[in-house]
């Protein structure tokens, strides 16, 4: 006896999972707001040490990737397999660019002695150390999500190539795209909070 395929159910499950991801980062945003109100000046000083250019480029890269994955969903609905694969490839490329820029950003910071538990931060004001610990935790866990999302899209891409995901059955790609939009959305909050408003 075959089980009914329930795409709406699958999408509902995915949305619930996205809620849990939002709340996971919610814990970090909560800490951010509590510590921002305690150390407004230190946060402001520390925030200016972040590279706004890198942050902005990464924002553009992620937004582009979100556009590409949304186009990939439309393409697979129309049954255009080649185009779907190209668009997914573009999304994964954006993810790689994002991670490369993140790598440069992080290593510059670490070179300057800014990393959790570093002697440089220990010597500075406590608010600065809190800011950078939060920065590394938030962007680190977000980066992990970028890697997971890119892996997921690559796996779905291989299914598109084999014809297992196609115009008649594309819920897997749709859900993976939802996950990718979430990765994008989280960054849309991280970027202004750490790079812009301080």
């Amino acid at each position: 006896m075959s089980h009914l395929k329930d795409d709406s159910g699958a999408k509902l499950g995915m949305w619930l999972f996205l809620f849990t991801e939002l709340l996971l980062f919610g814990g970090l945003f909560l800490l951010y707001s509590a510590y921002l109100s305690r150390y407004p000046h230190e946060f402001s000083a520390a925030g200016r040490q972040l590279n706004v250019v890198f942050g902005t480029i990464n924002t553009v890269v992620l937004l582009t990737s979100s556009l590409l994955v949304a186009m990939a969903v439309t393409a697979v609905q129309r049954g255009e397999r080649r185009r779907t694969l190209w668009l997914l490839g573009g999304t994964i490329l954006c993810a790689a660019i994002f991670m490369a820029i993140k790598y440069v950003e992080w290593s510059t910071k670490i070179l300057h002695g800014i990393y959790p538990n570093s002697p440089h931060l220990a010597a500075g004001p406590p608010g600065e150390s809190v800011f950078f610990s939060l920065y590394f935790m938030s962007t680190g866990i977000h980066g992990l999500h970028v890697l997971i999302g890119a892996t997921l899209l690559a796996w779905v891409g291989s299914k598109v190539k084999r014809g297992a995901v196609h115009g008649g059955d594309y819920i897997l790609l749709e859900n993976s795209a939802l996950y990718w939009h979430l990765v994008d959305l989280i960054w849309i909050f991280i970027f202004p909070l750490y790079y812009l408003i301080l």
Partner: protein
Amino acid sequence: MTTVQPTQPSFWNDTGKTGLAAWIFSTDHKRIGLLYFYSTFGFFLVGVLLGLLLRIELMAPGRTIMGPQTYNALFTVHGVVMIFLFIIPGFQGSFGNLVMPIQIGARDVAFPRLNLFSWWLYIIGAVIIITSLFTGGGPPDTGWTFYVPFSSRTGTNVSLAVFGVFVVGFSSILTGLNFITTIHRLRAEGMTWGRLPLFVWSLYATAWVQVLATPILAITLVLVMAERLLGTGLFDPGRGGDPVMYQHLFWIYSHPAVYIMILPAMGVISDVIPVFSRKPIFGYKMIAFSSIAIAAFGSLVWGHHMFTSGMSDTAILVFSFLTFIVAIPSAIKVFNWVSTLYKGSISLDAPMLFALSFILLFSIGGLSGLILGAAATDVHVHDTHFVVGHFHYVIFGGAGFAFFAAMHYWLPKFYGRRYAEKPAIVAWALMFVGFNVMYFTMQVLGMKGMPRRYYDYLPEFATLNLVATIGSWILVAGLIVMLVNLFRGLFRGEPFVGNPWGGATLEWTTATPPPTENFEEEPVVTHGPYDFRGTGIP
């Protein structure tokens, strides 16, 4: 369904395959339910053993059978095992899986493979937690709450234990989202929201708490690991952090978590009481609504764990007020259960006795909770044995006794054999007496000022501690009688066929034990879950 066969084989021997692999790789919700049942209940027995050892140590002042470090490790592991490995996954995993899909007239849960994956994650998490006891710096000694700064500094194996809890939490999230989707999408024709059995309503509310609260625990535990491994200092006052922020984050999850433990228990009671009173449940809508209300308000009261931690007076006032509000939906349930009993034709079978004692024990636990919820009285009994007594009244006397009720009520349905009634009642009586002797004494001890988590105590507490320890022996004696009777009955007892309890929910309309697809034909629901007119029992 494409073909309708007159008799389908039961889920025990449908595949023709036997052995371990047919179970641990099965996606059938009934098999997964039993996997969960035996794994969570196994950990319950481990937790009981640890608790028994703790009581023996406290039997007399000074060293009795173990040193202080062992004592610290034991109460930590007792808490971690009981909470994260038994009672949180226990109800949803075992009885949720076994009964819920049948009660809504579905063939399985919405995501059967994800369901199996949840169980595997649970087992992997459990293995990691057990590994943490024997590797590194030895078993964690922080208490199950993992409070900083101690948890970030102690040399014991906190990082690994916390990671294990993280994995178990992920399993809990996946079960939650699976159940929400199942209840939304897979109800049989005619199974409207107003006809859902109240057990399903309670699982639904619980699943939302699991989905919305557990991620906060996940990030908190990640931060504790980062604190220990990377030295982030986010909770370290020496580097600008604040340990009270840890307590906030921890309780934002862990207070709603007590509703993950108690809500399904309330659902079991709401299903058992009408069946053994031969009367429709009183106030169906209010009981269903109060489950949602408890889940909602219960998420806003975490601060009442922190009245002595250094919060502002305003925060204490608000959290205290909200805590009192949660008492309202809980009381609504109690009043409705009692009203259901009124003028009912009550039969005192084992499941009913457990359910009735649930009402009493949960009420005692709930009322003592109000003493803790009021800031002025809390300051005096905070961190004393009063809290230990209160918590065990709610979670053991409440959720635990409801778990036993569910075991006696539903397990025969899945085995086709039943336990003997008289020993079950003897076991219940022993446990009920032992329970009260032990935990009521603890509450008195707390009132007199005996702190919790202390290895040693002043001589004036000696008599009451001895009484509590004797209570624990009576309780365990009852538990042993129950186990022997129940499991001997399930494997070798009298046959259990048809609908002997006279339940009106869907699981009593299908074969015993149920076939793999649960029903011969997809059921069409025409009446509510507590309409007993068609059950053939007056």
